[in-house]
C-alpha cells in the first residue's frame, strides 16, 4: 500500500447490538495513529449512507431481515476484503436465539400481546424490512474473507487485527485474543 493513499474502511451493524462498534471506539488513543492510515467510508460514525469502493469492510451482526441482506450484499460488492466481526456475524449470536421460536409467535408476542398496544395489528408497511425465517451468520449469505470472533472482540484485538491487515500481514490473534464471548 502506498503511503499517500489512505485505506478506505467501511463498517456496519446488521442484527447486532453495536457492541462491536463500541469496542472499536474503545481503541481510544491508538485510534489516532490508525486514522492516519485509514479513511472511513460508510460507518455509523460518518453518516455516509451508501458504501463506496472500499479496501476493507467490517460487518457486525447477523442477517435477520431484508435490509440486512441488502446492506451485506452492498458491502460485499464494494469491499475488497470483507470481515465478519463478533459472535452475531459469525454464528447468528444472541439474536439467533429466536431461531427456534416460530416467526408467527414472535410477531404475535411483539405486536398483539405486548401490553400498551391496544388495537394494535401486525404492520404491513412496505417501508419495514421483512424479517427472514431465521437469523443467519453473514458467511451463509456472502463470501467472507476474515473472521474476528468475540462478543465483542476487545479493543486490543480489533486494533491488532486491523494493524495486521493494513500492514498487509495475515492477521494473527494471540490465544487470549481469540474468544467467542
Amino acid at each position, binding site marked *: 500500500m502506498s503511503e499517500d493513499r489512505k485505506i478506505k474502511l467501511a463498517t456496519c451493524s446488521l442484527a447486532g447490538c453495536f457492541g462491536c462498534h463500541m469496542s472499536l471506539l474503545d481503541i481510544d488513543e491508538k485510534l489516532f495513529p490508525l486514522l492516519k492510515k485509514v479513511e472511513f467510508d460508510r460507518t455509523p460514525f460518518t453518516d455516509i449512507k451508501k458504501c463506496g469502493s472500499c479496501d476493507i469492510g467490517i460487518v457486525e451482526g447477523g442477517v435477520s431481515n*431484508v435490509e440486512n*441482506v441488502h446492506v451485506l450484499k452492498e458491502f460485499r460488492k464494494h469491499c475488497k476484503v470483507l470481515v465478519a466481526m463478533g459472535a452475531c456475524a459469525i454464528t447468528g449470536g444472541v439474536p439467533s436465539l429466536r431461531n427456534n421460536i416460530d*416467526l*408467527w409467535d414472535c*410477531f404475535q408476542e411483539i405486536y398483539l400481546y405486548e401490553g400498551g398496544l391496544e388495537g394494535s395489528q*401486525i*404492520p*404491513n408497511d*412496505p417501508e419495514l*424490512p*421483512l*424479517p*427472514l*425465517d*431465521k437469523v*443467519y451468520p453473514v458467511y*451463509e*449469505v*456472502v*463470501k467472507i474473507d476474515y473472521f474476528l470472533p468475540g462478543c465483542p472482540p476487545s479493543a486490543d484485538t480489533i486494533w491488532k487485527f486491523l494493524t495486521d491487515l493494513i500492514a498487509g500481514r495475515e492477521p494473527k490473534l494471540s490465544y487470549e485474543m481469540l474468544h467467542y464471548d
Partner: protein
Amino acid sequence: MDSCEFSQIEQQLSPVFEQHGYEAQKLLQILLDVQEIYSFIPDEAITYIANLLSVSRVSVKAVVDFYSFLSFKSVGEYRVLFSDNITDQMLGKNELMQYFCKKMWLEPGKVSEDNLLSVDSTSCTGMCDQGPAALVNGWPLTNLDQQRLDLIAKLIRDRNPVSTWPAMLFEVKDNIYRSEILLGKPSVAGAAIKATLERGVAATLSEIEASKLRGRGGAGYSTANKWSSCRTSPGTAHYIVCNADEGEPGTFKDRVLLNSYADLVLEGMTIAAKIIGATQGFLYLRGEYRYLRRKLEEVLAQRRTAGLLGRSILGELGFDFDIEIHLGAGAYICGEESALIESLEGKSGRPRNRPPFPVTHGYLDQPTVVDNVETFACVSKIAEYDSAWFTALGTAQSSGSKILSISGDCARPGIYEYPFGVALYEIFDDCGAEDVHAVQVSGPSGTLVSCKEFRRRICFEDLPTAGALIIFNRERDILQVALNSAHFFAYESCGFCTPCRVGTQLQKKIIDKISDGYGTAYDLEELKYIGHIMRTMSHCGLGHTAANQVIDMLDKFPDAYKNKLKKLVFEPAFDLDRALEKARKITGRDDKLAHFP
C-alpha cells in the same frame, strides 16, 4: 386409539412373550410384534415390556426411536412404504407415490385422519429387478404401476386385510439368468455336512483355507482366517451369525439365495458351527425380507426332522446346533457386523469399538463368526466338493464365483453368477444393457464407474462388490444418482460419530443446493473436503464410504453438475426468497420489497 384398549395390554401381549421369552435380547423381536398389533408402540406397552424384561423404560424407548419400522405414533392400519432406491426412481417411483397420495388425499409422511393409511418412502427394499416396489405393512409389493395402485387403493378403502389381497401383488421372482457353481447344480441337503464329517473338522478348515474363500459381504476378509481365530478364542459359548441384512441399495442376491437355496446357506452355517464349536446360530434377516421368514422356518423344520439341525446332527454325538431367525427393523447400519450383533442383542444398531473384534468378543461378548449369506453358501459347496474345484474359477486373489444383482437400464435385470474376474462390458452383453453411460458397483457405498473404465473386472483386485450392479444409460442424470445416495446416507447414519452424523447432513444439503441450481465452484470444494473428513475420520464403513458416489461424480462426471453451477464464486447457503415466505404470510405483504429478485 382409546386408552381403555390398553388396559388389556397384558392379555394382548402375552402370546408375544410366550413366543419370544423374557430375555432382554428379545426386545427388538418383541417390539416388532407389538408394532404389528397396534401399528405403533403404545406407552403402556413400553412400561409393560420394560418391567417384564427388567430393563429401563428409556432403553426400550431408545430402541423404538432407532429403527425405521418402529414408531411411537400410529402409522395407520395400512402403511405403504415406497422403496426409494435410484432404480425405483428410474422406474417412476416419485410419480407413482404422488399419484397414490393424490388418490388417497394424503400427504407423504402423514397419517390419514381416520388412521386408515400412511404413505412414505423407505430405503431400498431389495426388489430392484422388479420395481417400482413398496412394502405394505411389511409385505413386499412389486412391479407397481397405476393400475396396481388403483387396486391397492380399493383394497385399503374397503379395509381388506393385507393377508387377503391378491397374491399377484406380492409375487417376487428369482430372475436367475446366469449360473455357475453356486446356483447351478443343486446339492442334496446334508451332503456337505456329511462330507465335512467324513473329512474331519481340521481337514475341512484346511480345505476352506486352500479354497482362498473371502467374505462375500464386500470387505473380502479370509473366511478361513476368521474361523480359525474364532475357533481358538476362549469363551463360554461360540456363535454363528448369518448376515442376511441385505441393505445395500441395489443388492438382492441374498433374497434369492434364501428363497431358493436356503439349504445351501443353512448347511454352510452348520459346517461353520462344527468347525468353531458353536451350538447356536442366528440368521439376521432384514425386516424388508420378513416375507421369507415362514418359508425359512419351514426349511429349518425340515432340516431338524432330517437330522441336519438339532441334537446329534447326522447321528454324530455332541454335534448339536440350531438356528434362530432374528428380524431386523429397518436400519442399514445393521449390515455392519458389530452393529448387527448389537441389534441381535436387542439394542440399537450402533457399531462397536474395534478391537475387540467379533471373533473374540461378539454376541454376548463371546467368540462369534459373522458371515454373509453367500459366504456360507460357498462353504457348503467347498465342503461338498473341494478347494481345487472351487479355485478352478476366478482370479489369483478372488477364487470362485460372485453372484451379482443387476438392475437399472438393462433388458434383463436379475441375478447373474459369474466367475470372479468378469469384465463389466461382458456383463452388459448378457443382461442386455445398451448405450451404458455409468455403472454403480456395490451400491452407494461402492464405486461409480464411467464408460472409460468398462474393461475393469469384478474381483477383489479391481472392483470388489457385495453384489449390486446398477446400470445407467446416457439419458440418466448422474447428479440424481449422487443425490439419491447422499440422501440415503443422511437417513441411515446411525449418529454415533461426529463426522458421519454431521457430514452426511452437510453433504446432502450441498448436493441439494447444486441440484436446485444454486451451487458454485466453492460448493464443490466443500463437498470434497467433507468427503475427506467422512472417509478418514468416521467410526465405521458407513461413514468411510458415504461420500463415494459424490466424490466419484465430481471426479468422473463433470457434465453431470457443470451446467448446473452458477458462474459466481459464491451463492448463499439457503434460498433467500424462501426465507421470507413466512413473514410474507404473516404480514400479508407481497410488495417488491418483500421479495428478493
